[in-house]
Structure formats: C-alpha cells, structure tokens
C-alpha cells in the first residue's frame, strides 16, 4: 500500500467523491448564475408579482382602515352597529382630505355598480363628523345605500388582505352578498367566451401550421443539404421582418381594394370585393403566416434525424409507401409534431397585435383584454387574474406535453 492511499483512508470513499464533485458543481453553478439572476429579475419576480396582484386586495384596507376594523365583528346579517357607521364617516372624511377616496370607490364599484357615486357623493356631503350616536341616521340620510346590507357586504368582501374576486371574475363567476360563488350577471360574463375563442383560434392556427408545415419540413429534411439550406432561408425570412410590418402587409394584401380582391375582380371571378380582413379569416391567415416557422423548425430537426434507411427497410419488408409512411415515418415525427404544436399554440394564445390589427371586434383574444385592463382602466387585479388563468392553462398543456414526451422516452424511442 502506498502512503497516499493510507493517508486518505480515514475519510470514507463516498465523502471523498462528493468533495471531488463539489468543485465541479460550483463551477457549473457559476456558469449559469448570470442567467439565473437574469431570469429571477425578468421572469420569476414579475410573474410572482402578477400572480400576487390577482389576489391582492389593498385599496379598501388602506383607505378605510377604521371601517374594516369595525366590520370585523359584523356577522353579515342585518346592518352593522353605530360604531361601524361612525368609523365609516371618519374614514370617508380622512380619505377625502387625503384624496384617496376615489381609489376605494373604484375598487368597491367592481363589486356593486354605482358604489362609486354613493361613496364620492357621501364624501362631498359629509361636512363634519356626525355627533356620537347619530352617525347611522346621518349616513342613511345622506345616501340611502348605507341602509342596505349589500353595501356593507361589499365593503367587508373588499376588506382584504386577499380576495378571490378577480380570479372568479376572470372565469365569469362572482360572490353574492352571502358569499356563495355564483355566475356573474350576463352583461359581465364575457371572459369564458373570450378564453374559448382564444383557444379556438390557437387550435385552428396550430392545425393550419401543422397541415402546411409538415410537408414543407418533410421536403426540407429530404433534400440535399445545399438546396435545403437555401429553402430554409425562405422559411426563416419572416423572422427578419418585424411582426408589425408583416401584419400590415396582410392588410395591404387582403383589404377590399387590396391585391387579392383586385386580382379576383379583374379576372371577373367576383363582382363585389370579398371580405377577407377584419374577420376571423384574416386572423387565421396572418397568424398562421407568422407562426409557421415555429412549426417547421422543430419538425425539420426531428425529421432530419430520421434515417432514410427506415423507409427503405419498410419498403423492402413489403410495406407500400403510404403504409410505410403512416406506420414507420409518422410515429417517429411525433416528438417534432408535439414540440411544434406546443410552441405554436402557446405563442398563438398570447397573440395581441395581429388580431388587433386584422381581426374584427369579435376576434379579439384574451391578451387584448389583459392589455385593455392594464393600460386603459388600470384594473391590474383583473388583468393579472386573466393572465394567471392564461398562464395556468398554458402550464397544464406544457405539463401534458412533458408527460407524453417523457412517457415515450422511458419506453424507448431511442435511435440506433
């Protein structure tokens, strides 16, 4: 035995191995650290922030802290006691002076239509704090709404710190004054339809991309390298132009006085211009064009790896071309089909600019509503909730794909 061996013998082999590996692991960690930090600040933090915004209920507790505290004892039956009215009056007066009353008014108006007017007019009319014992009568006199249980239930439901209001609203549900989950009134029930429409357009675009992209990828994968590289440039060409420019190009092509309608009319095929844009057709057309490369590329890379020997083997074993394609080639392209469909679908359901430009009012997808609530009405709670639902459905799909892909891997599917 050498001395070196004996020297290390008191440390168990496993620990020595771990020690040896540790340096390597630290080095690996060091290499990915910049990316991790980047992802943390640009992805994880905003994402967590968005999800928090969808349940955060800060307005009422911040603007009306005394009322919130007073309502803690209220059981929700009948009207609250005198102290709650006094607290409300005090809160309203303080908030009006601080200029924050509108913030709470906006939040409460989501729950009860017209609450904004009630609160703001009360603020205007309440010149001074009511004398002790007269708060209830004074408040109801100023605004009869304070004599209704619904108003108080609204304040209590919005008194935080978290609320399910936005998430429920994002799927057309709401809570009635008793706290039960019920369908939202018909005039506010739009999001389920919008989600359905979003998924419908997503599936449609994905299917179109697959139908159009599969033969192209097949051809590219089976051409000699030189020619397939040249054709690949045409596939990638759209990536080199801005999305906005490409979408606008479709407007030029498809509009009533556009190239397509002009040609068809000149040829005498149609009398009146066809309506090709500002409807669902235009959305499918433009989105499929924009997303097609995302289908072709994964398909191509998978197909490139499928040796032509498989099809030859199938033919030599007696399979006619169609049988060989369906039973031998197609199953081997499934990882590519899965990746392409997932990619296109996820990108499609988040689309915003293209449907906004080439779609009609009934073709707007969920992203445009999220944008609307973020930038127009500054209802970040609902915007975040819609985003969270979209994120959740995307995650479910990704997990489903992962499970399918993983399932294939564990049962083989290896290359020779």
């Amino acid at each position: 035995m050498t001395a070196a061996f004996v020297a290390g013998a008191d440390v168990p082999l496993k620990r020595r191995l771990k020690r040896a590996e540790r340096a390597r692991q630290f080095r690996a960690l060091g290499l990915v650290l910049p990316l991790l930090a980047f992802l943390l600040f640009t992805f994880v933090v905003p994402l967590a922030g968005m999800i928090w915004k969808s349940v955060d209920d800060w307005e009422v507790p911040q603007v009306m802290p005394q009322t919130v505290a007073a309502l803690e004892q209220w059981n929700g039956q009948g009207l609250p006691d005198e102290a709650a009215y006094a607290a409300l009056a005090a809160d309203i007066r303080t908030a009006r002076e601080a200029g924050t009353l509108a913030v709470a008014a906006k939040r409460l108006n989501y729950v009860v239509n017209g609450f904004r007017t009630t609160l703001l007019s009360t603020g205007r009319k309440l010149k001074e704090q009511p004398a002790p014992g007269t708060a209830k009568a004074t408040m109801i006199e100023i605004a009869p709404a304070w004599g209704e249980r619904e108003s108080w239930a609204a304040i209590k439901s919005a008194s935080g710190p978290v609320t399910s209001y936005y998430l429920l609203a994002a799927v057309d549900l709401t809570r009635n004054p008793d706290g039960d989950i019920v369908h939202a009134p018909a005039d506010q029930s739009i999001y389920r339809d919008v989600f359905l429409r979003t998924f419908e357009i997503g599936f449609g675009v994905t299917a179109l991309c697959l139908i159009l992209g599969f033969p192209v990828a097949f051809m590219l994968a089976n051409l000699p390298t030189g020619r397939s590289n040249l054709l690949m440039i045409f596939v990638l060409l759209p990536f080199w132009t801005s999305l906005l420019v490409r979408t606008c190009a479709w407007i030029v092509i498809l509009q009533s006085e556009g190239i397509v309608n002009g040609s068809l009319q000149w040829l005498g095929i149609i009398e009146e211009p066809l309506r090709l844009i500002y409807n669902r057709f235009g959305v499918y057309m433009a989105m499929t064009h924009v997303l097609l490369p995302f289908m072709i590329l994964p398909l191509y890379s998978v197909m490139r790896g499928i040796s032509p020997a498989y099809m030859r083997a199938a033919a030599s074993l007696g399979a006619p071309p169609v049988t060989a394609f369906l039973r031998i080639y197609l199953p081997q392209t499934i990882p590519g089909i899965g990746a392409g469909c997932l990619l296109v679908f996820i990108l499609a359901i988040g689309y915003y600019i293209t449907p906004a430009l080439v779609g009609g009012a009934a073709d707007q997808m969920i992203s445009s509503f999220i944008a609307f609530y973020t930038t127009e009405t500054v209802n970040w709670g609902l915007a975040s909730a819609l985003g969270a639902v979209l994120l959740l459905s995307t995650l479910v799909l990704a997990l489903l794909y992962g499970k399918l892909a993983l399932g294939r891997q564990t049962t083989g599917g290896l290359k020779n």
Partner: protein
Amino acid sequence: MDGGMIATTDTLVRFTGVQKTYDGEHLVVKSLDLDIRKGEFLTLLGPSGSGKTTTLMMLAGFEVPTHGEIFIGDRPIKNVPPHKRDIGMVFQNYALFPHLTIEENVAFPLSVRGVSKAETKERVAAALDMIKLGNLASRRPGQLSGGQQQRVALARALVFNPALVLMDEPLGALDKRLREHMQLEIKHLHETMGLTVVYVTHDQGEALTMSDRIAVFNDGIVQQIDRPDALYERPVNSFVANFIGENNVLSGVVENIEHGWARVALDAGGSVVAQAVNVGGAGSRTSLSIRPERVAIETGDSGDATTNRLPATLTDLIYVGDHTLAILSTPSNPEFMVKLPAGSYAGLAPGQDVYIAFRPEDCRALDPV
C-alpha cells in the same frame, strides 16, 4: 466471366447489360451481366465507389438502372416497386424501427402482408427462437447491443420467407470477434434454410469465409466472379490479385510466349517464367503476381532450373505467430514479402543476401499496373 445470355433453370436473378449513372456523366455501374443462382451465397466485393452497393440497391429496387434489365426468375423487375419484389434486406445500420418493440419489428413484414394474428405470433416466435432472442421480444431496439440488433434485423428479413435476401455490409458496425461469430451464424442460416443471399462487403476476409462465389467489383465493372479459392489462387487480373490477399508484384516486358508460358524480362534485370494469364504478345508490358506463401528463401544456389530465382537482401523478419513474415529488397520490388512457415527461418538474419525462389505455376503474368 460467368453469366451467359440464356438463363439456366437454377438461375434466380439475372442482370443483363445493366448500367447506372447518377449524374449523367460517368457510369457508376458500367456494364453488368450477372447471374445469381438459386440457393447460392454470392458476395459483391470491392472498394468503396466500385458500384457494388449500387448494384445491390438496383436489385432491391431503391435505384433504377439507367440501362439494361434485371430479372427475378423470368420476371423483369425494373418497374416493380421495392415493396412488391419480395426481397428481404438487411441494412448496414440495421434500420430497426426505433418506436416498435423487437416483436413488432419482426412482425412488421407479416402484418403488412395481412397474415393472421395467430400465424404472425407463431412465426415471429419461431424467428426469434432462431436467433435465440425470444426473451427480448418486448424490448426496444435501443436497448439491445449491436450484435443483438443485427440478429433481429436478420430475423425480420427472413420471417416472410423471401425468395432472396440482400445484405448491405451487415457486420460493418460490429467489433472483430462478434463479426466473426455473426459470419458463421449467417452462413449457418444460409445452409439450413436454403436461402439465396447476395452479400455486399469491402472486407475480403469476410467474403472468402462466407461465399459460394464472389464477384469482385472495381470501377463499375465485375473484374472476376468465381469461387473463393479460385479467386485467390487464380486471379485473372492485377486488380483482383492485389485486392484479394497479399500479393507481390514484379514489373517487366514479355519476351516470348510458348504453350501458355511467358518468359518475362524484369525491368530491374533478370528474367522469370510465368503463366501467361492476361498479357499481350511479345513486347507487351506485364505485372507478375506471386503470393507470399508460394515463395521460398534460399541461402545458396540449389541448381533447380525449373524454378525462378532472384537475388534479394533480407531487410526484416516479423514474427506473426503462426508464420513469420520476411521482407526482402529485390531490384524489382523493394518490399517483397515472403511468408515463412512457423519455425523455418533458422539461420536467417536481416541484412543477409539470399535468393527468392518460386515456381512458374505460382507466378501469374497479368495486366500491367
């Protein structure tokens, strides 16, 4: 060359005047007339680019002859698609379908032929038993070793009882020991099942071991087609002599030819008598071919006038185990090889001046290289 215009009854495949070009400029297969007999093991042997694989692909139906016709039996097959040719094929990289199990792979040719489930099951089991892999039926190809995969590919190509089996360098990816084992296994299957096999390889040892006949390809032409021993002992031209086995070459000019024996004046001086196999008349150039094991090293003059005798200097002795390789320098060939039987080089040492001696019948006068 073998292969007349009239097919005999036991001819299974016939190539007549087949040519193939890919670019329309040069022919990969220049002119191929070849008969493949029923039940024989025919090997297409040649360096890469010699046209042997193209020939196999034309037979399988993956390439179309530019000119000429191929018959299986009496049926011309030029316009028959591969899947209707009923030819089993084993590929170099096995081409087992990665998404199917071993069992499904072997069942594939039966299922596309609409064979009943019960019969398929029976025949697949028999085929897997034949290659002794019945216990791996539910594995995927990726989980098998190279040798096992090749055996599955073999079972899959045989399970539908094809009239003809083509093998395209099937053992190229295996290591030496496994390759030798598989050679015997394939040979055994050929004999027991009475298969007709067309086998492509660039490994001459493999070709010599396995084949009934070998067709040596070079430059798009079949140089010689013959039994392995005939090919080795009686090559008809310099390419075959050099491609198959070890060969010593001596260059010279024919002085005269009498009764099939040529006297050749070597370029570097001296003259030898050789069998006139593939030479022109007197005055034409020739390359003499002598196998290393047909040469003796003599230290003195034995005086035997019927033996060719050339002076040489022994430059190296290499011990190979079953024999010893002597490298000699002669005026005509600075690296003349002689295989000495084990234990017969006593008294020889590098640097020694000796004579190399060989009989005229072991020396073949072929076309000049």
